[in-house]
């Protein structure tokens, strides 16, 4: 058991002095900012390019032109594409698409519902099975059966491949410090590099089709599996491992008998996050013709048809909640199901599958009770009401936050001379994390300058900081509440799941009406997407604090507030760090979506790069800048967290 209040590693006087130096830096920055405002800011117009950007364009063109002759394409990418295409197409043929000369898939809706119910029953129990059946039938009632099955096929394929790659890598990174150090930047890169940057090149490498969509999805969805698996292995208490080793267990035995079982719950959290991340990609993948619900959303939004988009978004949410609950319940210890139930279930399932193979009524979902159009109408009505009656209030709130928070921060970062900001960043890094942090930050600053997008980076940085602060505030408040109350957890969790997988543009249409195209709208979008992750991690961390400790604290006469602040939060600081880290990365992964609603800067550069050939190089550079920002902020917060937790 870790001691509750570890002694501070530094004498108080030193820390006091550091605070003074920090304050001095800020004051000096402000003074110099007043003197040198708006000079040497390295700004670059929206249509302007640097030689680097042009060079990337040329490379991109050259790769495209050599596609049909280059052996790397012919023998490497083509093989990967074939395997993945076959895999996805096979799953689609089973449940989604007309196949094998039949006008319908092999297994119709009745069969799929039965299988979903049976698998849930076998691994997760009655209640979850009921939820799964209800959820899948709901998809049919929405009038979106085929689209949902296409999305499910693609998601399953991407998740399976992610886990096949991710869990072994995660275990490796959990066991070896060197692997951890090697993988972390790669994962940062995969999670923060905006999809728009590699979407077009992907279709060049893997053609338009399921393979590209799957790969795009798994680049984004695999990192959580790896990260959280590693985290799980690492958080198994040292003395458990030592006990096992002292009993003469080999490395493998320790891994299989001690580490993996102790880490199982957390690893499943990683599986969850992978599924959620994969479903979050559904809409973006639709831009390269990925079949399924994403297409419905994208198409509806061309005419700002929020109702239709919401209906499809809701289907994604339903899929997410079912998959999430099944995997979560599968991880918890349970009494096994009696044999007769298993066999009976298998029998009924087989019958349903046979029926759905043979008869039209069981193959194609046709129902007189169609609820999709009601959902559609309801969502449209709510949106219209909000757009008509709220903008007076929301507009004022937006202006307040913009003028009080975003503008001053942005002015300081983006309107100071570049070397001044660079100096401040490096100095603060040194204070927080010593020489190492200073070196990392200096390298990141140099890279940002090299991308030619310094000022845009600073504008994005300002918005990112504001969004992350909001995420952490929400994360701590709601996370603690959920961690302390099972009931709150039960009610809030589905909302969080919905916020994580509902395609951003569905709620961005009304947000645009409420807050106009602005940086604030982008920040709100990022908070909606990133807060759930932070909240969940903190809630789990709070719950993991041993009840005995909490009881002891209460018995000693602590109030709830004291228990939270003095016991639960400090003991969950590992979770807090992870939450801040993931919150930040999720905020950064929304920078591009922000670019679609008025954030400008790096997000817009990436979007424009995806849409216009001659801006491709600039878009890629902006993508790199986002990653660099991510790495820099991540290392800084980790250094700060280490200081705080010791």
């Amino acid at each position, binding site marked *: 058991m870790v001691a509750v209040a570890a002694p501070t590693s530094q004498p108080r006087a030193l820390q006091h002095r550091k605070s003074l130096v920090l304050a001095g830096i800020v004051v000096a920055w402000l003074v110099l900012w007043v003197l040198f405002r708006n000079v040497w800011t390295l700004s670059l*117009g*929206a*249509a302007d390019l640097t030689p680097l950007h042009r060079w990337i364009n040329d490379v991109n*063109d050259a790769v*495209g*032109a050599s*596609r049909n002759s280059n052996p790397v394409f012919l023998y490497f990418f083509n093989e990967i594409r074939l395997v993945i295409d076959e895999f996805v197409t096979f799953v689609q043929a089973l449940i989604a698409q007309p196949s094998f000369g*039949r*006008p319908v898939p092999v297994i119709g809706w009745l069969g799929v519902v039965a299988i979903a119910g049976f698998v849930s029953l076998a691994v997760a129990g009655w209640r979850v099975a009921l939820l799964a059946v209800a959820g899948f039938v709901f998809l049919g009632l929405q009038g979106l059966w085929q689209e949902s099955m296409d999305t499910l096929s693609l998601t399953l394929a991407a998740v399976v491949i992610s886990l096949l790659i991710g869990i072994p890598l995660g275990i490796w990174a959990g066991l070896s410090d060197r692997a951890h150090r090697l993988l972390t930047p790669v994962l940062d890169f995969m999670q923060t590099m905006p999809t728009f940057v590699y*979407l*077009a090149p992907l*279709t*060049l490498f893997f*053609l*338009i*089709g399921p393979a590209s969509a799957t790969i795009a999805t798994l680049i984004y969805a695999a990192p959580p599996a790896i990260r959280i698996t590693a985290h799980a292995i690492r958080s198994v208490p040292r003395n458990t491992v030592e006990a096992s080793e002292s009993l003469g267990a080999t490395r493998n035995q320790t891994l299989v008998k001690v580490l993996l079982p102790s880490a199982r719950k957390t690893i499943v959290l990683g599986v969850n996050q992978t599924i959620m991340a994969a479903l979050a990609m559904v809409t973006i993948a639709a*831009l*390269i013709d990925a079949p399924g619900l994403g*297409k419905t959303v*994208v198409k509806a*939004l*061309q*005419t*700002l*048809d929020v109702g239709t988009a919401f209906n499809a978004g809701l289907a994604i949410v339903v899929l997410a909640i079912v998959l999430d609950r099944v995997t979560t319940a599968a991880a918890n210890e349970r009494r096994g199901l*009696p*044999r*007769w139930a298993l066999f*009976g279930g298998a*029998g*009924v399932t087989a*019958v349903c599958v046979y*029926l759905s193979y*043979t*008869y*039209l*009524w069981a193959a194609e979902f046709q129902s007189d009770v169609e609820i999709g159009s009601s959902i559609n109408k309801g969502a449209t009505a709510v949106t219209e009401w909000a757009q008509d009656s709220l903008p007076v209030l929301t507009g004022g709130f*937006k*202006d307040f936050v*913009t003028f009080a928070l975003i503008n001053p921060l942005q002015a300081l970062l983006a309107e100071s001379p570049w070397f001044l900001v660079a100096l401040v960043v490096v100095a603060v890094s040194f204070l927080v994390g010593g020489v190492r942090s200073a070196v990392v930050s200096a390298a990141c600053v140099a890279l940002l300058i090299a991308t030619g997008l310094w000022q845009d980076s600073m504008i994005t940085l300002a918005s990112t900081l504001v969004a992350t602060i909001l995420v952490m505030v929400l994360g701590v408040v709601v996370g603690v509440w959920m961690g302390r109350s099972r009931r709150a957890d039960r009610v809030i969790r589905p909302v969080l799941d919905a916020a994580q997988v509902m395609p951003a543009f569905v709620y961005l249409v009304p947000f*645009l*009406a409420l807050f*106009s*195209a*602005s*940086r604030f709208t982008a920040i709100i979008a990022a908070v909606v997407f990133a807060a759930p992750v932070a909240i969940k991690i903190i809630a789990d961390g709070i719950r993991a604090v041993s009840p005995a400790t909490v009881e002891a604290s209460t018995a000693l006469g602590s109030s709830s507030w004291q228990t939270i602040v003095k016991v639960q939060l400090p003991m969950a600081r590992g979770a807090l760090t992870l939450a801040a880290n993931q919150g930040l990365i999720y905020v950064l992964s929304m920078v591009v979506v922000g*670019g*679609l*609603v*008025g954030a*400008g800067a790096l997000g*817009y550069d990436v*979007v424009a790069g*995806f*849409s*216009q*050939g*001659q*801006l*491709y190089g600039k878009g890629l550079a902006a993508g790199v800048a986002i990653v660099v920002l991510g790495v820099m902020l991540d290392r800084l917060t980790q250094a700060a967290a280490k200081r705080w937790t010791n």
Partner: protein
Amino acid sequence: MARHSVLGTVSAGLVALVVLSGCGGAKVGDTSSGATGDCGTFNLAINPWVGYEANAAVLAYVAEKELKCKVTKKELKEEVAWQGFGTGEVDAVVENWGHDDLRKKYIDEQKTAVSAGSTGVKGQIGWYVPPWLAKEHPDILDWNNLNKYADQFKTSESGDKGQLLDGDPSFVTNDEALVKNLNLNYKVVYGGSETALIQAFRQAEKDKKWVIGYFYSPQWLLNEIKLEKVKLPPYTAGCDADAEKIACDYPDYDLDKIVSKKFADANGPAAQLVKNFKWTNEDQNTVAKYIAEDKMKPEDAAKKWADANADKIKAWLPKA
């Protein structure tokens, strides 16, 4: 005991099976699908805007009904669609807005694409204001008067200048250069998407708010709100040659069709159809309205238009 239950359940399942198959209903495969003719597969890119969808829907409808092609629609952004010419996955793009960069790359350099002529639709890009504003301040439609109103267009994003809302990054914008070279007291704010623009204009017309922004026609929103175009210094050939010094309006675009070289060379029925396809802004607006406002499926919208315009369609069909 357990064994008995298993048997029981299985036999119950079998009984259910027999009962259900008795009252079964139509079997899979009872009806066969229509056969395809010699046209083969026609891979049609669908770029993400409604006007394009209107062109594509009508073309797909004619190709399927008249020529018996198997039409595969692929929903792609422009850049990706053009890339598909080279990889053989896209046969045709049926509404192209200029895109000189893509032309240069795929038609001139890689030689994987060729132009298939005009769609007959004229495209316009420019600065637009909501109708209420044009009515109350008619002089705003001349760029010379824009500075007079700059204060009204201030927002949280534009600082002490007026906001010129740019949106869809799919098209080239000269707006930063224009603002600078015309000495306008405005700041270009990047909304970043068509959605952001449409919401801004809708909100502006409804609440009588001041908005000026980049927009284009034909676009389905113009059926709903008659946005007014602001007059910029007229376009003359070559006035946009130097991107830094542009001080003139955007040119009119003759929206055209691009097809893959292979598709054009084979000159099958679908290729001839695409080449012959030509209609008007009005035609496209009609179909776009069916899709965007009447919420019809593209297929149904195409059928409705086609039924009323049989003579136009006849002219597109390959000459036997």
